[in-house]
């Protein structure tokens, strides 16, 4: 089963709508609660990043027999140094984003913690694709 979502890069108040919709679907399908929790947290962090750092984009989420695979694709600025970005506390978020409760530099480490596989493909000036995988 597949879902695709447009991720609006301009309206921060709707950020998380894709993760919310997908969570409802996982519940309907009877996926175990601890798996849903991990998917929700990782997906939501990635969705927020697509909005605040990537300028919006799209999300493709697929539920296969043995795993859930979710990609966020943006045409934003890209990540110059992935190792630095993965460090807890590293953030380039603006003051405005910090005032909204994000920008603690915990998003990518959180995603890594809650997923079974996590890939970042990025080209500076072209965009970023983040793919999360959680085994069922």
């Amino acid at each position, binding site marked *: 089963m597949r879902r695709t979502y447009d991720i609006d890069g301009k309206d*921060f*108040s*709707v*950020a*998380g709508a894709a*993760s*919310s919709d997908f*969570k409802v679907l996982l519940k309907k399908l009877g996926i175990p*609660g601890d798996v849903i*929790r991990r998917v*929700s*947290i990782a997906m*939501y*962090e990635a969705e*927020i990043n697509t909005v605040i750092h990537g300028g919006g984009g799209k999300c493709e989420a697929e539920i296969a027999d043995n795993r859930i695979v979710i990609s966020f694709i943006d045409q934003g600025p890209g990540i110059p140094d992935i190792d630095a970005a993965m460090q807890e506390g590293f953030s380039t978020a603006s003051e405005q984003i910090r005032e*909204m*409760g*994000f920008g*603690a*530099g*915990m*998003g990518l*480490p*959180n995603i890594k*913690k809650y997923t079974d596989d996590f890939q970042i493909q990025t080209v500076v000036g072209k965009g970023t694709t983040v793919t999360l995988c959680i085994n069922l």
Partner: protein
Amino acid sequence: MLLSEIKATLHAVAATGEDDAQLSQVDISTACGSDLLSDVLAFVKDQSLLLTGLVNAQVIRTAEMMDIMAICFVRGKEPTDEIIDLAREKGITVLTTEHPMYVTCGKLYAKDLGVRADAQDL
């Protein structure tokens, strides 16, 4: 601790409109006080109450992702109708209290909310 007791302890108001009988149906075992949503996403446990001075739609989204049952906005911060509607839609109770964060946490901790869960972590 029942949500109705939490409301009384904090002299709080239920912005989502539940009465005390409804609030007494919800049993909360621990709380988390934070204005950093990524910290909440990293550390929170089950059956939690989120105490925060941050007021925006992402607070509700974060609670939704974590299965947090109730949120209390501290320091007299008033959520907008949009925020309250989103919380209602997701079945999350929103309380508001005039007390600042430190006092809010202290009052609940003094009544043993989350004290046992805290001891297990050390």
